[in-house]
């Protein structure tokens, strides 16, 4: 076996491979030793990064997206005869309200989305900037999240997240409560990506 064949056939420098050639060839033995020390260094780098992971806000957004994605499926699984009737009645009601608003225009009230104890999803179709409206609702834009289009429909989903997620958006949390869970409303854009969050309990 020549040097080239030795290096081509060596599966892993860390493993006990066929090192017969290395025993005969001083240059390859020396280089093999350097490769092994390099691999040890790489293992140290890997060990140092072992606890590095995505920030908590990614999990928050994904759980919200998961719930948003699952909700229509659950609805479709249990159809009831009164659902279409109720939908038509609601649509008719919306049309009547819209017609009355056109006849008697007035100043629009700020939208409030009061979430119930279960997961809540609300479609907001205001033509105002969603984040501007969020100022009233204590929604905090998520870091690196793109802004919502003024006419974009949003969904609000309630999730339970570690209190450490509050740190991600700049809220203070006392060290002994970091691992506690806290309820939060997450605002999702049309693409299902989380844009803003509101914590129901912001106490430290």
């Amino acid at each position: 076996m020549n040097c080239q064949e030795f290096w081509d056939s060596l599966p892993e420098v860390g493993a006990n491979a066929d090192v017969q050639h290395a025993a005969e060839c001083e240059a390859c033995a020396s280089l093999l030793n350097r490769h092994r020390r390099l691999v040890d260094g790489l293992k140290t780098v890997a060990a140092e990064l072992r606890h590095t992971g995505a920030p908590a806000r990614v999990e928050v957004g994904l759980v919200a997206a998961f719930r948003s994605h699952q909700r229509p499926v659950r609805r479709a699984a249990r159809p009831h005869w009164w659902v279409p009737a109720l939908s038509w009645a609601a649509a008719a009601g919306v049309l009547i309200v819209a017609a009355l608003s056109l006849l008697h225009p007035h100043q629009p009230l700020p939208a409030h989305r009061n979430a119930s104890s279960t997961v809540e999803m609300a479609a907001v179709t205001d033509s105002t900037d969603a984040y501007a409206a969020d100022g009233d609702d204590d929604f905090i834009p998520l870091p690196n999240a793109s802004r919502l289009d003024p006419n974009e429909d949003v969904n609000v989903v309630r999730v339970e997240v570690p209190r450490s997620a509050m740190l991600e958006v700049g809220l203070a949390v006392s060290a002994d409560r970091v691992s506690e869970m806290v309820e939060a409303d997450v605002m999702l854009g049309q693409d299902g990506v989380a844009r803003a969050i509101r914590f129901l309990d912001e106490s430290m």
Partner: protein
Amino acid sequence: MNVKPPETDDELFVLLRGGDEAAFVALYRKRQASIYRFAMHVSGSASVAEDVAQEVFMALLRDGCGFDPDRGTLSGYLYGIARKLLLRQMERGRGDVPLETESEEKVLPGLAVTDNALDDLTHREGIEALRRAIGTLPRRYREVVVLCDLEEVDYADAAGVLGCPIGTVRSRLHRARALLLEKLNQDRQPRPSVSTLKPIRCFI
């Protein structure tokens, strides 16, 4: 009777596709860190890594997510999506210049590397230098070092992620390690001092 909770990726995948949120969260917590680190090492950016981690797991929620257990592991599938997203990101940013002229199959071991650089790998500074050196590798070598050496993905899975034969993974890894040794050695070469520089001409 105690029922063993599902632990394998495939079991969690089946459950999450059936709408089990706990399975989705469990899979995310099990796999997010390695995907995030892979993206961070390859892109060199924490914000890109965060976006990639989010998009990778969003892909699992989509109807035609395309994962087939017969074709590979879920972990490999997630890395594959991450890599595609990163390549797309790099295409947009054009931040990487591939070394297309180098042969992949022939790896010549003849590099003049001193032991001093490797001695440093037992110190904090040496490990930092190694991390920097990984970041300066051409992308094709960087991703194989991150997958195989830092994240300990086996060669077969890495080949699936990178879309190349196992032999190519092996040769790229050898080449990557040789380049790392070279870079570490270059870092240790003393810079020429000002007194040794010869002024040539001044036009001002």
